[in-house]
């Protein structure tokens, strides 16, 4: 029979010799193999103290971005919701009224913006679809929760801290994420 790869090895079907039948030599050989493993480096990462580094292109939990003056960038255009293959994003738009110019960058904003983290497949298509640079995937993942409702993240969970009023919180969040 022709072998598919060059890795195939013929099985030795000769009867065992006396020394092989004693097993002792092979057992001692095996014991030295396990003994040599005592001095090998352990690949374990001691989780809460040490953390595995994510790849630079890791797609984690979403954040809703603000501009430099702390205004929300999202205009509730709905392109992210359309792009989302898992239909995890819902939003409700509202019109900016006079006096809210410091809060929202454009005339329309998202009054409600929810992502269901149980539906989300973290593909990053929302990030690509967004014309306003409002949604980004960060480098953390959703923490555990006791209820399904807890996984529906609203605006309060998603918005990044205001760089003007909560600069220290933003720096901390960036430090944790980086």
């Amino acid at each position, binding site marked *: 029979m022709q072998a598919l790869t060059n890795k195939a090895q013929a099985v030795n079907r000769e009867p065992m010799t006396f020394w092989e039948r004693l097993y002792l030599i092979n*057992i001692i050989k095996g*014991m030295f193999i*396990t*003994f040599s*493993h*005592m001095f090998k480096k*352990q690949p374990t990462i*001691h989780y809460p103290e040490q953390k595995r580094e994510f790849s630079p292109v890791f797609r984690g939990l979403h954040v809703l971005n603000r501009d430099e003056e702390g205004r929300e960038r999202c205009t509730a255009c709905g392109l992210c919701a359309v792009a989302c293959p898992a239909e995890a994003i819902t939003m409700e738009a509202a019109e900016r009224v006079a006096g809210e110019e410091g809060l929202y960058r454009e005339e329309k904003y998202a009054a409600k913006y929810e992502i269901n983290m149980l539906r989300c497949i973290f593909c990053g298509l929302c990030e690509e679809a967004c014309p306003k640079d409002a949604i980004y995937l960060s480098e953390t993942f959703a923490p555990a929760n006791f209820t399904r409702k807890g996984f529906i993240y609203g605006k309060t969970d998603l918005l990044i801290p205001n760089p003007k009023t909560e600069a220290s919180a933003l720096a901390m969040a960036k430090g944790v994420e980086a």
Partner: protein
Amino acid sequence: MTIIAIDWAFIVEKLIMIAIIVFASLGIALYTTFGERKVAAILQDRPGPSRVGPFGLFQPLADGLKLIMKEEIIPNAANKWLFILGPGLAMTASLMTCAVIPWGSAVDVFGRHVALQIADVNIGILYVFAVVSMGVYGIMIGGWASNNKFSLMSSLRAASQAISYELAMGLALIALLMTTGSLSLKTIVEQQITGRYWNIVYQPLGFLLFFITALAECNRTPFDLPEAENELNFGYHQEYSSMKLGFYLFAEYINMIMSSAIMASMYFGGYDLPFFNEASVAPNIAALIGVGTLLIKIVMFIFLFMWIRWTIPRFRYDQLMNLGWKTMIPLALFNLLLTGAVILAKL
């Protein structure tokens, strides 16, 4: 006037010693479980238990607490008394072995000369054999009383394995006894201290046979068929929970310690520290050094047991029986003949 003169101090001395040895062997057994997990982990490139206390040192306490807090379950169809008797018997039998092991020479406490051995019986080894064969009753009764076919199968396996390997073990020992001429463990150890070599030099094949049969007697891998996690659902202790299960597991570890102690005493000089003149230090210190030496030898044997466990897979049942009857017993008989011939030639 007294009818029987009782040396009360002697009784107190022995009771204290029994308490120390029983609690010490329980404590060592506790930490042997920890050692087992650590050795297994290190041999498999893992860190092992490391969370409870520094280096995970309190892990056995957490394990013990968990076992005690579990619900005691006695199955409806089980024979209640035998079900409870089983683990107790296994534990008693394994603890009783320690009575004849000489843990050290002797210390002088409050003007008394205290031998570090509970009982220097002149048939010490026979006593050990008798008690060890009692241990299999714990397994058999537990397995039978569980009223579960897997438990019953495994206890049958345990019984047949114990009987097959005890024969070879006894024959290997007889060869040793022919050279020492005594059944008392104390005398055997003293002979090795005063003599030129340890008994391992005179009985290498005997030791190998004894070691392999000891593995089988302790139900350790590669002879752990009675437990056989993946074929028999943990075997004879399948129906057990809480501390009754803990007793079975503990008994296994105590058996391991005791058979290590016996092997160290009979073949490796017991409490004899090689190349060291005991007379050069105070007798009490020499005795303590002896105890430490024996403990180190025991730990080394236990490590060997664990090392084997995490290297070799389990035998198949027919292989086990083949090895026992067709290899071990003929080899033991051959060893017996050889020893007899050498002794005759020397005369």
